[in-house]
């Protein structure tokens, strides 16, 4: 319909980038991404220096964060490794916000910048916007506001109550961060002004509630007739330890509760990212690969560009074998990329095996299939659904059973027809945070007695807790709760281990 487009010339000219070149890349990549149906937040691309990248690393990629020594520790660590050359910095960091902020390193070559724009600004960005976990759990529009609010609130607290007092609470919260998420309830994200207004309201309200719970005067009227022994609190076990503490810790000041809440919110915000590492990286890698291929086909990049790009791409998806000194777990980029590539292959050129394993997508539209996979799964279910025999064969995956009671390890499955299903299930289980993190819940609070808090650890596959850390964490929990804290490890309905804080002396006298 339109006039034939002019013969395109490659955008890249040598390895140096300029802002004009970045703009060209961004525009072309945006066009290609739109053709592939990638739906994204607007992009805010920021070029930063390596020092700034170190800063970004230290605060877990958050553009704004409150002050805490642990971020300083991370900074010192990263800086040390970087200065000695042990650690190459990431080419980019991308933040789940609206607009989506992506940091590009100034040291990147022009090719790398194109790769990174495709990877972060269109790959990750579309994932953030469309994956069901992110849609349900995070609100990209309000996170920056919330970070600003949190930083200001904590700074005010430091001014009013002293850095040390605030640090004590933050330390304790950080140790429980992994257990400060709701796995099922949906949180309601709100804006900063709203948050500030509500915070004041909450302070008053919460304190009233807590006072009510801990009231020692017997309730009047007909309630008094209720036998005390029947009161069980909480009525159901609570999985979100920080939430429970925020709402119910007897001796906390309102500002301390608010800090607990802030840490809890951060943890909740990061929770989807931890559950979708393979998918998120796989999706972004799949798209930078596909988009840059497309750019080459359109004549927008030179052969040299492609050679350099493929070299980087190959490094990113390299998976060292299990016995290599470089092995450190399965590379999420490799696994994710392999699965998405394979979904496309299954759609475009299905074999008999594929028709057997994936009857619903074999031969269908690949674009629809990958979008569906990206939108509706997390790592665990994604692997369970889409890990194909071909990928298992390509990566030569095998399963090893490790029972601490036995002297040897057992190879239970390899990449053959008997093993595919088992490997799929086992690998999926390894991405289930519910299994990989100890399952610890609030079990009981002795509200009429010594106010002791009892936690229960439901042992999964009879895996014990790391003993030394438990006592440390309990100290922090004790700090927050203000009264005795007990933890019981339960296996098959039987309590097999006790931990206490403060430690219980031998009960002989």
């Amino acid at each position, binding site marked *: 319909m339109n006039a034939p487009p002019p013969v395109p010339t490659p955008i890249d000219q040598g390895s140096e980038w300029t802002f004009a070149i970045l703009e060209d890349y961004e525009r072309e990549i945006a066009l290609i991404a739109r053709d592939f149906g990638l739906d994204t937040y607007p992009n805010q691309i920021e070029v930063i220096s390596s020092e700034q990248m170190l800063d970004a690393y230290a605060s877990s990629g958050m553009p704004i964060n409150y002050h805490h020594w642990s971020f300083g520790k991370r900074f010192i660590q990263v800086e040390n490794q970087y200065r000695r050359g042990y650690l190459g910095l990431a080419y980019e960091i991308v933040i789940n916000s609206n607009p989506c902020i992506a940091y590009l390193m100034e040291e990147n070559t022009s090719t790398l910048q194109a790769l990174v724009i495709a990877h972060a600004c269109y790959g990750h960005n579309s994932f953030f916007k469309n994956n069901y976990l992110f849609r349900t759990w995070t609100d990209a529009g309000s996170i920056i506001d919330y970070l600003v609010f949190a930083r200001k609130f904590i700074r005010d607290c430091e001014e009013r109550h002293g850095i040390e007092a605030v640090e004590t609470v933050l330390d304790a919260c950080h140790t429980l961060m992994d257990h400060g998420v709701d796995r099922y309830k949906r949180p309601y994200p709100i804006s900063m002004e709203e948050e500030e207004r509500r915070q004041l309201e909450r302070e008053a309200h919460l304190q009233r509630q807590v006072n009510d719970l801990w009231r020692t005067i017997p309730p009047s009227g007909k309630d008094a007739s209720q036998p005390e022994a029947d009161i069980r609190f909480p009525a159901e076990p609570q999985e979100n330890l920080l939430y429970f503490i925020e709402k119910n810790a007897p001796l906390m000041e309102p500002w301390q509760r608010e800090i607990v809440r802030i840490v809890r919110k951060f943890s909740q915000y990061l929770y989807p990212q931890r559950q979708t590492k393979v998918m998120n990286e796989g999706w972004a890698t799949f798209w930078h690969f596909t988009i840059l291929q497309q750019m080459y086909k359109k004549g927008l990049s030179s052969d040299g560009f492609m050679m350099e790009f493929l070299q980087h791409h190959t490094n990113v998806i390299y998976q060292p074998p299990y016995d290599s000194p470089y092995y450190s777990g399965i590379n999420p980029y490799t696994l994710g990329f392999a699965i998405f590539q394979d979904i496309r292959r299954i759609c475009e050129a299905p074999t008999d095996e594929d028709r057997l394993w994936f009857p619903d997508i074999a031969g269908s539209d690949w674009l629809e299939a990958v979008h569906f996979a990206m939108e509706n799964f997390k790592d665990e279910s994604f692997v369970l659904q889409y890990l194909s025999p071909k990928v298992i064969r390509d990566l030569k995956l095998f399963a090893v059973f490790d029972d601490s009671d036995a002297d040897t390890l057992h190879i239970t499955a390899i990449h053959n027809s008997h093993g595919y299903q088992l490997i799929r299930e086992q690998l999926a289980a390894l991405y289930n945070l519910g299994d990989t993190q100890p399952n610890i819940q609030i079990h009981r609070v002795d509200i009429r007695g010594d106010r002791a808090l009892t936690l229960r650890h439901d042992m999964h*596959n009879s895996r014990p807790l790391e003993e030394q850390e438990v006592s440390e964490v309990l100290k922090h929990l004790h700090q927050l709760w203000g009264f005795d804290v007990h933890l019981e490890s339960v296996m098959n309905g039987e309590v097999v281990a006790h931990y206490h804080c403060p430690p219980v002396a031998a009960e002989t006298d």
Partner: protein
Amino acid sequence: MAYLIDRRLNGKNKSAVNRQRFIQRHREQIRKSVQDSLRNRSITNIDGGEKVSIPRRDTDEPSFRHGRGGKVTHVLPGNREFVPGDTVPRPPSGGGGAGRGASPNSEGLDDFVFEISQQEFLDFLFEDMALPNLTKRQLTGIEEFKTRRAGFSPVGTPNNIDVPRSMRAATSRRIALTAGKRRQLRELETQLASLGDGEDSFTRERRADLAARIVELQRRIERVSFIDDFDIRYRRYEKVPVPRSQAVMFCLMDVSGSMDQGTKDLAKRFFLLLYLFLSRNYDKIEVVFIRHHTSAKEVDEEEFFYSRETGGTVVSSALQLMRNIIETRYPPSLWNIYGAQASDGDNWPDDNGHCIELMQQLIPQVQYYAYIEIAAAGEHPLWQTYGAIRPRFADRFAMQHITGPADIYPVFHELFRKQQP
């Protein structure tokens, strides 16, 4: 759709506060590490920071985690040799083989090692110490000048023109000079407007007259120049004298046969500490090394610490030399003088009286004099001699025993402990 932003010019030290918090939190361990590192430093080598190590468990952030044990299935890539049903021996823990490659435990329990800057290093070292008698001659020294901004001036050189100030002056001048005319102009304009558009000859004439006056006024308003010579303001600078404090530190050491290399090493460490400490309080420090046996000699650092001599000991020779040097090169009115003497306590018995005499002249001239006896506590001749005059100069003359490397820092700490006011 996308915004490209160059953030490279933004500050890069976002993490400085967090880093400071970390250091604050682990100050005890860092201080210990700093003190340990003292023995490896050369006396004037204070460039650069210091490597500090903290036991890793102190920096840990604990969380509920699975420990070892239980029944776990791992899925690993790169199978070459295994078939189902194979059994393999358990690889050693933390090894790169099958198992917990990514486990936090496999990092090992190395210390957490990082570098602190020179400033931080010294802060830790001298945290709660202060120089006594600091006030008296603090500000003496050669006067230097530095230029400082000091307001604005109507005269100056073109490179110092302050544009906003000049424009402000020009604007106010224009407002002042035209205020009356503009008021008239407004009045005429209102009159013109109130005339209406009547076409009789009177009105027409009146209108023409008003219009002419308006034009004339506007022309006169415009004639007021936009900027004038006397609007120009220049940034003014003035020279202020910079008080510079300077100090000279005398290191006196007995190098007679009884002082072996180990003893000298202890002395060296003490001198190093003193030098570092003084360099925090003074802009400029000179160090004079005087060594003596039966006669004294001024030498350089290398010779001071490492050449060997034998012979008897006449302490007064060194004191005499120090006095001469002060007289010729370091007038006490201009210099803050510090003396540090290290010895094993020996002296020629007949010399003690002479020493007392010299010390009584020397000590009023110095800010502080520290005598370090590197020997087991006991009644050595020099200790007795100095002990006799010490009470008279209690505020600026100190004596301490050192027996081993472990004593140096505590003794130093004791000498310069912050006095309660």
